[in-house]
């Protein structure tokens, strides 16, 4: 039978192929079918009972309960069947090429926008069969590989896939080749810069092309680049750009890029969308229907390895689709991330249990993708004029208990699991010799099983074998039959059966049976699962906020010792009045203003400005883009991870502001971002908006170290040259930009200079708009960089680490650079062999603005104690010492107008300490930013109790849930950072994190 089907299908495919000569005689059977008596789910929400679908020549011609069936149509009785429009698999990756080696290739192999999935699709028969078995008749195929991956297409999943559209969308992935790779970009940082530069280049390429077409003479021809061409043409035609995302942060990053370049965009989702549903862009979402494996929590110690966020995700992920739909998103589904494709139907029915409406589920498989893919007039519905793509199921597809019997694609039938001639499942009354028993036959996914029942006994059937209407089985039943094993064989009709039984002694006899009922005693149904009853917090997991931080209008702190870090020094028994997030007054005995004020008793407490760390890598999902020696184009603001618990821990140590820096892998690294630790805020709101832009430089061992892929420079001499070279090319760039922008004639007829994000940043440095924060150790390199800066007319913002700064402090002061150093680190590498803990004091005394930094999530929690080391080593005055972590870093980051000291008009960023802030015995009790309390010992206790309860309840739920034999969830490991920030980690290991 199977063979027969295949031959049939082969014939069909020949018939439907319209081009090309006939191989033998023409075959022209009528391609007309009528499927009758079915439950037709014509479109989401519209069901026809006892309906008929008529198809002719690959198209649906009529649908309804009372339709005329054309004469030539073959009629199929579909009683009991459910018919749906063919499902659309909204994401199916196709393998791409390694590299474009043509003359029209982009310089970087990650740019391959010219590729078309339609040209790359070479499915194996089994892949197609597996897809059809789930009911998929059409797929959105997507090229995978590189960053700009190429254009997706829509194909019919018949034996010979037919392309419906070859330019659906441009696919983009934030794919880095990883640390140690031999091509830029190697990190998320670089990837985002590469995407942005790609779009700028596409615009430039188009403009240049137009000018060249108009003025072919006098302009030097440019290298042809078919990817840039594809990008600019796609952008011009408003073709959608679809971004592959790993989690909700990537959705935000996609949106930022789409906004910057005014793109029509879609999101290839990730399963984490439910976490930020309120803030998500209203774009079309293609959401994977795979759920996390079960955490292994039966061993209580093993359970400790799972983060709270992971445990919650297990419980909440199956709600994702339902929540998205409820929030009004246009959703399409994909099973492409499933390891076991058969889980698709199971997960779909789980989603429905969790609150997804069946008609919304159907829409997500049919009308939604059809509309977004521009096919709403011919795909997604069982309606006249639509392509004859159908799913035939023996039950409601979304019930979780249905089998797809067949799909129709282009009016051709593909059998999946056809019904047998006779359905033998049921309870039969069996007569064998003089005995009458019940014969119960069950059918499951694994096949048939059964039993023979007497009044008080039940005997299992062995070796049950069913083929269409024929059965064979054995029974070992000494008492009922004969000693030994008795074998049965027989054939069924709808209501009767007969056959022979063979006994252990070699004799045989006849048996017969009549149907009692088609029903078989149902197995225990799996309990319907409920939606998760957990609350979302942000960031998700432990210490996440369940509501916004309260924002009191007026706050009064009474009778505290106030370390102003300003001209007033240390004030004992003073009051601070805060209004609307700003410091209003600092005086003795401030009387309460009218109205409500939050009063904090500061008696015995010390209040300091919020601590500032001028060198941090916390909340950076990616730290180094180290492949090239200059990467001024990459930006830390693109890779902020607001989920990093290091932020919270920093707050618990009085830290309020950090300078998130690029790593030290290259002489000119990426752009930094200054952040306020507004824990519980998303990336954008963490950014310290008033802080000027900056950039990381690095000198010495980290940058000159030999790379496996070979990279200039490998000596301090080369480092100097790389930086000089960068600035001289930035000068040239600025020159050509200025010339072009001033001359209207040039603008009309000459090729414009190409906008270069890297050079833009360097020009900003020269213009004094971008502060340089340079990683440095030795005096020679410190001097060197001040000289380069002066040659190019700018001042270095800070030298970071600057452990030999004490040797050239007068030069630092003269140049005007700040020094952000470690309190007492040394001996970890050769270039710090002369590092001394007196560095801070010596530089301060020479007139340099000095800060102490952490460069470590751990140290960042006790910056006050770092400051205390300046008292110990070199005897700095205590108030001056505290300034090393308050006003001084604020000055270095040029944010001292807003933060860094407790003075009238400044942001109310402050810390309340249990005692002297430079004492090792003191504890940070409260941390405030903008007049809002972001940390307190009390609130911390609340989180602890809440989170312990949540963990416990999920663990109980996991233990109570049925064993499903699926692969367990992999724990997030020791640090429990949600992301494997391997770039960062590896960069730390290989480059040193300094």
């Amino acid at each position, binding site marked *: 039978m199977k063979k027969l089907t295949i031959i049939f299908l082969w014939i069909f495919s020949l018939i439907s192929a319209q081009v090309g000569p006939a191989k033998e005689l023409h075959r022209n059977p009528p391609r007309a079918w009528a499927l009758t008596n079915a439950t037709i789910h014509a479109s989401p929400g519209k069901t026809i009972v006892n309906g008929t679908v008529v198809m002719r020549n690959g198209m649906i011609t009529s649908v309804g309960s009372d339709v005329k069936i054309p004469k030539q149509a073959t009629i199929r009785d579909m009683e009991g069947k459910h018919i749906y429009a063919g499902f659309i698999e909204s994401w199916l990756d196709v393998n791409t090429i390694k590299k474009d080696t043509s003359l029209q290739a982009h310089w970087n192999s990650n740019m391959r926008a010219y590729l078309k999935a339609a040209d790359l699709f070479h499915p194996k028969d089994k892949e197609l069969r597996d897809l059809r078995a789930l009911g998929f008749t059409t797929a959105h195929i997507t090229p995978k590989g590189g960053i700009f991956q190429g254009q997706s297409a829509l194909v019919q999943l018949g034996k010979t896939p037919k392309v419906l559209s070859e330019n659906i969308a441009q696919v983009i992935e934030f794919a880095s080749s990883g640390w140690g790779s031999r091509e830029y970009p190697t990190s998320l940082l670089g990837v985002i810069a590469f995407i942005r530069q790609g779009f700028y280049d596409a615009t430039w390429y188009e403009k240049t092309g137009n000018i060249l077409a108009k003025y072919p003479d006098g302009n030097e021809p440019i290298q042809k680049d078919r990817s840039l061409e594809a990008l600019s043409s796609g952008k011009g035609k408003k073709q959608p750009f679809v971004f592959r995302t790993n989690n909700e942060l990537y959705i935000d990053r996609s949106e930022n890029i789409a906004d910057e370049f005014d793109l029509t965009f879609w999101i290839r989702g990730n399963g984490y969308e439910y976490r930020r549903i309120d803030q998500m862009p209203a774009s079309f979402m293609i959401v994977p229907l795979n759920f996390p494996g079960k955490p292994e929590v039966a061993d209580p110690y093993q359970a400790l390895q799972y983060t709270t966020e992971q445990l919650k995700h297990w419980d909440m992920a199956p709600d994702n689709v339902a929540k998205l739909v409820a929030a009004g998103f246009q959703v399409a589904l994909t099973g492409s991330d499933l390891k076991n494709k058969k889980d698709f139907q199971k997960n779909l029915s789980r989603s429905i249990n969790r609150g997804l409406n069946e008609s919304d589920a159907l829409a997500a498989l049919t009308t939604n993708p059809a509309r977004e893919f521009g096919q709403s007039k011919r795909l997604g519905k069982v309606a006249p004029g639509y392509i004859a793509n159908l799913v035939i199921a023996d039950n409601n597809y979304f019930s979780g208990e249905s089998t797809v019997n067949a799909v129709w694609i282009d009016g051709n039938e593909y059998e999946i699991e056809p019904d047998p001639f006779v359905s033998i499942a049921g309870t039969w009354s069996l007569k064998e010799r003089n005995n009458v028993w019940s014969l119960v036959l069950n059918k499951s996914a694994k096949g048939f099983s059964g039993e023979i029942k007497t009044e008080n006994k039940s005997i299992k059937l062995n070796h049950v074998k069913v083929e269409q209407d024929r059965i064979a089985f054995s029974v070992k039943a000494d008492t009922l039959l004969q000693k030994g094993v008795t074998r049965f064989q027989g054939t069924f009709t709808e209501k009767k059966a007969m056959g022979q039984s063979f006994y252990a002694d070699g004799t045989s006899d006849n048996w017969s049976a009549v149907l009692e009922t088609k029903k078989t005693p149902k197995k225990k149904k799996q309990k319907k699962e409920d939606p998760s009853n957990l609350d979302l917090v942000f960031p998700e997991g*432990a210490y996440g906020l369940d509501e916004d931080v309260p924002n009191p209008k007026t706050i009064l702190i009474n009778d505290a010792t106030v370390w102003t870090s300003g001209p007033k020094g240390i004030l004992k028994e003073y009051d601070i009045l805060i209004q609307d997030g700003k410091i209003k007054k600092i005086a003795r005995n401030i009387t309460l203003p009218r109205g409500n004020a939050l009063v904090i008793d500061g008696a015995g407490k010390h209040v300091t400005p919020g601590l500032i760390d001028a060198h941090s890598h916390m909340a950076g999902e990616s730290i180094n883009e180290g492949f090239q020696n200059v990467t001024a184009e990459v930006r830390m603001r693109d890779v902020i991870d607001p989920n990093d618990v290091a932020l919270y821990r920093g707050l618990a140590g009085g830290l309020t502001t950090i300078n998130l820096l690029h790593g030290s892998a290259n002489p000119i690294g990426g752009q930094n971002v200054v952040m306020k630790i507004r824990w519980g805020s998303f990336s954008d709101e963490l950014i310290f908006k008033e802080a000027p832009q900056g950039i990381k430089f690095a000198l010495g061992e980290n940058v000159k170290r030999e790379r496996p892929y070979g990279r200039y420079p490998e000596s301090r001499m080369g480092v100097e040259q790389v930086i000089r070279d960068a600035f001289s090319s930035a000068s040239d760039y600025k020159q050509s930009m200025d010339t072009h922008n001033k001359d209207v004639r040039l603008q009309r007829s000459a090729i414009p200079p190409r906008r270069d994000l890297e050079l833009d940043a360097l020009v900003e440095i020269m213009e004094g708009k971008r502060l340089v924060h340079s990683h440095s150790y030795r005096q020679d390199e410190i001097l060197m960089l001040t000289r380069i800066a002066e040659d190019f007319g700018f001042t270095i913002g800070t030298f970071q680490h600057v452990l030999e700064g004490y040797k050239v402090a007068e030069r630092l002061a003269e140049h005007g650079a700040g020094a952000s150093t470690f309190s007492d680190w040394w001996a970890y590498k050769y270039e710090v062999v002369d590092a*001394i803990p007196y560095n801070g004091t010596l530089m301060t005394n020479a007139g340099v603005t000095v800060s102490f930094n952490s460069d470590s999530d751990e140290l960042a929690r006790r910056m006050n104690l770092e400051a205390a080391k300046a008292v110990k080593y070199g005897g700095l005055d205590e108030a001056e010492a505290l300034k090393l972590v308050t006003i001084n870093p604020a000055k270095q980051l040029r944010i001292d107008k807003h933060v860094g000291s407790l003075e009238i008009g400044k942001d109310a960023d402050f810390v309340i300490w249990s005692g002297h802030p430079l004492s090792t015995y003191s504890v940070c009790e409260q941390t405030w930013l903008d007049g809002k309390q972001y940390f307190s010992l009390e609130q911390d206790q609340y989180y602890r109790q809440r989170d312990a309860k949540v963990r416990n309840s999920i663990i109980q739920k996991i233990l109570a849930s049925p064993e499903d034999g699926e692969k367990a969830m992999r724990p997030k490991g020791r640090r429990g950072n949600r992301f494997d920030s391997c770039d960062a980690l590896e960069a730390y290991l290989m480059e040193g994190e300094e």
Partner: protein
Amino acid sequence: MKQLMAAILLSTFLFPNNQIPAAPQKHPILLKNGFIHTVSNGVVNGSILFDKGKITHIGEFISPPDGAEVIDLDGKHVYPGFIAAVSRMGLVEISAVDVTNDHSERGDFNPNVRANVAYNPDSEIIPTTRSNGVLIANIVPASGLVSGQASIMMMDGWTWENATFAHPSGLHINWPQMGIRAGGRRFSMSAEKQNERRQKALEKLDEIMKQSHAYARLRQTNTRTAEDYHKEDLRLESMIPYVQGNLPIYIHANEVRQIEAAVHWANRHDVKIVLVGGKDAWRTIDLLKKNKIPVIYEGVTALPSRRYEDYDQAYKGAALLYEAGIQFCIASSSGDASRVRNLPNHAAMAAAYGLPKDEALRSITLSAAEILGIDPQVGSLESGKDATLFIANGDPLEIRTNVLQAYIQGRKIDMGDRHKMLYHKYQEKYRQLGILKE
């Protein structure tokens, strides 16, 4: 006398030298008119007398014996020298420069290697460390499963033999990873493979003990028949005192399953163990208590082990052990050399988060000595104990406090170090430039 004191203190600041190891104590020294923090017996507002390297008397008033050098403390404080219970002092100079590392031998099973033979008494790190009052350090090999034997060193001496206080102090074992590490591009080993690797390591640890027992039995037989004859095996030979329970085995383990497994392993093989690390020790209080396992609690200032743990989990870990009545001391990290000078900060952090101040001080002096088994000689200020102590201008657990003078076995220590030297050198530069006026 005050002037003498001032001169002594100043001289070390003004004229740093290349830190010449001190000569043996030649005359009695009386430190008077200060606060003597004995650790074992409260604070005495008075004097301390020591001679020939040993403390002879502590009291409110002590009259100086003949020939005594008398130093007026003028209200300053005397403490027993801090003890770094685990460290790499002298075994590494610059960690990133591979050739200066001598703490890790090749291979998994190195019970025979001895730390003190690789101790560099001229390491620049040593003077900077004793400048903060750390006068004794247990130095620990680091690599593989069985790393080697540790040695207790005094932070002054011409040679490693001079500087050795006790050897061996114990055998060090890194307990295998018991958990499943998260996947990722850097570490892609499957959970199954990790389980397999763990099983192998655990089997190996048992196998080592069985072999060592067998070897020990063989070595004890007096007969020298052909059957008993055996070739010497340096590794197994060095295991004998440990399998016989004469010396403790230090197990480095932080995670709860490691701790649990290590304790049961010790019981199975009837050996004495000390737990090093102990981040999760608070989760296994009863087990540790029942089996009387001492804990060298490492890294008070460390980050929590798990994302959801209390931000101050490591800070308060020592207090939790103290409250549970478990014998413990505090160390910085067994991987530390250049940061051992911050040992008092670790103790102070524990005090800020619940450990009584006295206990915090004890945790890096007497408690450490007790666990290392050197409390008869050091760890507190008592008559008969070594005069290994220092003078400070305040509470040495406070960062702002400075150690003014140290004595190791009564020998007056050169308080200069590389950092002070460079400090003075560059102060001179700024004096020459007219930037520094003093």
